């Protein structure tokens, strides 16, 4: 460990802020009615969907220790509950935690 944690945090924060700032600078002359804005909008939604599905199918960290079948079943149940409760987000959020706990503990 040749670098101090403080410097690593600084480098990480700068590397992250650059993308946010570049986004602000790019959008300065962009109208929210333009085609370019539209394109960025769909790309952004698509990127987020790719990221979230990847986090469930190929997770990092502790979630890897849960069976892929249990991760997918929990996700499908929670999405169904979200639709059935007319877009209540709190219920499926809590349910995902409880269901996966049950799966992991094998109750």
């Amino acid at each position, binding site marked *: 460990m040749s670098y101090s944690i403080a410097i690593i945090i600084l480098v990480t924060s700068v590397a992250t802020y650059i993308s946010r700032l570049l986004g602000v600078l790019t959008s300065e002359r962009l109208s929210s009615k333009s085609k370019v804005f539209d394109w960025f909008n769909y790309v*952004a939604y698509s990127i987020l969907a790719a990221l979230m599905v*990847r986090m469930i199918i190929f997770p990092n960290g502790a979630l890897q220790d849960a069976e892929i079948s249990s991760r997918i079943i929990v996700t499908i149940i929670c999405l169904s509950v979200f639709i059935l409760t007319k877009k209540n987000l709190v219920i499926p*959020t809590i349910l995902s935690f409880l269901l996966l706990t049950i799966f992991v503990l094998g109750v």
Partner: protein
Amino acid sequence: MINRKFFYLGLRSLAGTSSPALALAASFIALGAIFKHSGFNLEQSVASSLFTYALPGQLVMTESYLIGASLINIFISVWLVNFRFYPMTVALMPALHHKNQPRWKYYISCHFLAVSSWLIMKEGYKKIDKRFRLDYWIGIGSGTLTSAVLSTTFGYLISDYLSNDLMIALGIVNPVYFLCMMVGAMTNIKTTVAIVMGGILGPIFYLFTPEWSILISGFIGGSLAFLIKEKK
């Protein structure tokens, strides 16, 4: 400087049935525990969530630190993993523009950009008067960032009580919450195609190029959606 009414309106998005607070808490509590086990002290853990505020990037930083990666390597891998903020910012900021708002507010408030705040803002900005959208955004961002920092602190302090089983269960909360939010955003054919294609392509490209998979699938899925002609 900041319109209080709209700031509080944004802040209030943390309450109610669409609140991202639980999802943020679950993932940042887990992150706090990971920091503790990786040898960070409390101040460093708080500083990381406050100044970086991007979960995947913070995880990459921690892993890089543990294997002793060089600063340039850390910079490049974090930049790549958090590059999604670039298209996300471009897809949001034009909607917040107003000539009465000073530029510095955009430069500072872009730090609040994260998946949670972005999705909430995208869902609600059209209902907000254009003059005050930036203040509304700052309200949302202050709330989500504060939740992240407090949860990191809490996770750090209780890390010894978090079993691996609990850490596994905490891991599912964040992607499930955001997937629900995205299903909720599928109100027209183009957004639906963007989200469904991204969700299908993401894991497929991951098999070939883990680092680039998210950006490539987003680029393809988003472009396909953009090209679709909507019936009017």
